[in-house]
């Protein structure tokens, strides 16, 4: 066991891990962070995507000991006070159905919009095609990301002002 310290969603965390332990398992089982999902454990599906120093990576392919000193963002740390504009765009377009792929795809799209604030449909397809979704047929995901870009993406990670529910 080795103690490692890293930043998780803005807070410093220290946790003891074995050398073979995978980051995904440490997040889910030791730190109770459940939004990264286990879909394949082999880097094929993207359900476990997190942001490592702002870049989307597959947490099932990373050993926990590797993230010492780094900054990790999961969906728990995005839009804490309400959905971000990107997430709202996902909701409007029905860009997820079962929702199992959503945490990974939202993070991958968030990272894309920070790098490329107004992506074209083609750029979205290239950037996120490693994330599998079996429910939506992807069309709505692409539309959501493109539209969020068109509406101004600098705020992609900042929470939206909370609108009151009207239903």
């Amino acid at each position: 066991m080795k103690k490692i310290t890293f930043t998780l969603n803005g807070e410093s965390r220290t946790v003891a891990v074995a050398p073979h332990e995978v980051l995904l398992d440490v997040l889910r089982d030791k730190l109770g962070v459940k939004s990264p999902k286990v879909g394949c454990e082999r880097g094929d599906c993207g359900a476990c995507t997190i942001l490592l120093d702002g870049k989307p990576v597959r947490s099932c392919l990373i050993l926990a000991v590797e993230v010492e000193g780094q900054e990790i963002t999961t969906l728990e740390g995005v839009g804490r006070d309400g959905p971000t504009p990107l997430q709202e765009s996902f909701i409007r377009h029905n860009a997820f159905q079962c929702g199992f792929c959503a945490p990974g795809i939202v993070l991958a799209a968030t990272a894309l919009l920070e790098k490329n604030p107004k992506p074209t449909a083609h750029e979205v397809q290239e950037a996120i095609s490693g994330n599998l979704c079996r429910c939506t047929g992807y069309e709505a995901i692409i539309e959501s990301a493109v539209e969020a870009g068109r509406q101004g993406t600098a705020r992609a990670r900042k929470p939206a002002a909370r609108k009151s529910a009207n239903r």
Partner: protein
Amino acid sequence: MPATVQTRDPRWVGQGIPRVDAEDKVRGRAQYVDDLLVPNGWHGHVVRAPVPHGLLRGLTPDPAFDWSRVVVVTAKDIPGPNCIVSHDRSMPVIASDEFLYAGEPVALIAAPTLRLAREAAEHLRIDFEERPAILTLHEVADQFKHNDPALVKLCGQTIRKGDAEAALARAHKVVEAEYTAGHQEQLYIEPQGLVAEPTGDGGVFIYGSMQCPYFIVHELCEALALPPEKIRVKQAAVGGAFGGKEEFPTWLAGYVALLALKAKRPVKIVYDRHQDILYTTKRHPVWSRYRTGLNRDGTIAAIAVDFLLDGGAYLTLSDVVMYRGILHAAMGYRCDHVFVNGLVARTNTVPSGAFRGFGAPQAIWGLESHVDAMAAAAGMTPHEFRLKNCLVQGDTTPTGQVLKWSVGSPAVLEKSLERCRFDEQWKKCSRGKPGAKSWYGIGVSFFAHGAAFTGDGEARIKARAAMDLDWLAPGRPGGIVRVSSTEMGQGALTVLSQLAADGLGLDLSRVSCPFPDTALVPNSGPTVASRTTMVVGSCVYGAAGKLKKALEQFAGKPIASGKEFDEIASAYLNKHGRLRVEHLFVLPPGTQWDQKTFRGDSYPGYSWGCNVAEVEVDPRTLGIRVKKITAFYDIGKVVNPVLAKGQIEGGLVQALGYSVMEKIGIDRKGRFDASRMQTYIIPTMQDIPEMDLDFVEFPFDHAPPGAKGVGELPMDGLAPAIANAIEAATGLRMRDLPITPEKLYEHSQKNLGR
């Protein structure tokens, strides 16, 4: 909920409101089974048969291993009869003396950690005597073609209308061909997973990822020797299902329940992807043979079909998959002489099971490919032939059902052809023209999908929904939808909430639709067969209307506003407590069905669809690119157009995978030859075509407000539309799915050789 509702119109049906579970899901807060904390829970692991067929001589535990740390369950520990009560009682929960497929459970192990459970499994020796095995569809199709008595028939059924053989003999032209398709894996992104906990009263509580909570109760109560009320089943958030979580979770529930009861503590099994692909059900492989006769005027004289499904090792629900298959195998066209011969054959592979479409895509794959062959033989274009022969209102189906209402044909066909300018595009097809840089082709398919259960099934299961008048929160009365339908991504919670709100005439905020828990909900049937919106939804709508009437009677006046409802409902709840009303689904008057002869009204209504695919094939690599899909659907009244479109898009992309990408065979050891997402390839974001989709509404008046099924329809017709387009592009007729460049190449070489 975010404020994305488009209008304040009190009618919710017809509005594309966002899903009610949207915010939880998009913020990563939805709880899937593997996200739930299971205090004191152990992990279960399944010990599996190593070869596809064998006699089980015994299990020998390694004396060097410390067995006190784990709990082992074998067939001997099953309190009741060792069977899962599906459509027969042939499949054991755990194999006892014979096993019929590689991977069939022979023992179960639970331990404090998964690692220990797996380690224990390695110390359990399986003693067996290997027996001969039949592994593939091609073997059973050969047996069938040669009348080989070795063929093990799990079930059979025919449909007869007129005299097909005589009509074939008289026909001006006869067109014959065979069509095949392999397994397809559902590949929901959330793997299968369930937890079982012993309850204080000797029963068991099972929760997790599933489509049909009551299946688990009814299919396991014999084996567990428990009365149904002692098996409580509750759904967690489900990460996709597509039929894959219809009957399979019962098997898994058997494993966790037996382990939990013996270990006297909660036990969880969540499959990893490898196990999930290797040991769960898939779409039935199909072999079909069409022999059709044409009249001189281009009408259809006769359709004779042999329809063979590979059922895998046990029957499970394959009979009904085959029924749906044969009911769609000659559907959609006017013809007086039809014979369909359906059967399910055994192979020593994992039992095949439910997958979106449930036999219909396999049937329509053959039929709609063959319709192009008939059109060519009749000297007509594929679209002229379809327009001339398609069933319309007043026509009779192969089972003798007169299409009296809600017939979206020929509307879907005409509209699709017009939207994509089929006639113009058809003339541009390359047909394998030498020297071209790229080959272009366009193809069409047209189909109906029987909505809800076959025949009088809906009446027999007495599906019902309940609405509870109860407190949604302290001081906030409302209607709670109580049904056994599950939300697996398709949007059931949202659509049922919309229907409940309209039934009550109230705002959506006064309605709630929680996940089903068999302790709380009546049996509204399984979440299958595209029946949820149409059948269960209509029951919810009816129950909500009754609830409103009951309250109005209580108040002695009509309820005109939400405020009035709050007052009256609060008064009722304070005086009498919770109020439950139920509503039963009733088949249209005059429905007649003979389950023996398969004559009569095979479905209460049909959804209709038309797909046009445009493809490009690279003449050098034979790489296939599906460029565009144009499609119209009649799903009756569209309750939520945004969610319905999502169902169609998602289903079409699964169908795209079935058509040209998704390939899984059986290796020599009798196992699936792909077991990871890297080897079983599904469409990614870069593979999708442009999609131009639309609806025409022909409401189904016998189930207000008139919805028909949508979930399965998009899976039905794309494969033949693509195969038809590929023929128009290359001149090659492909009759085996998936259509890959390798198969195109092989086929082109054969053609050259002739």
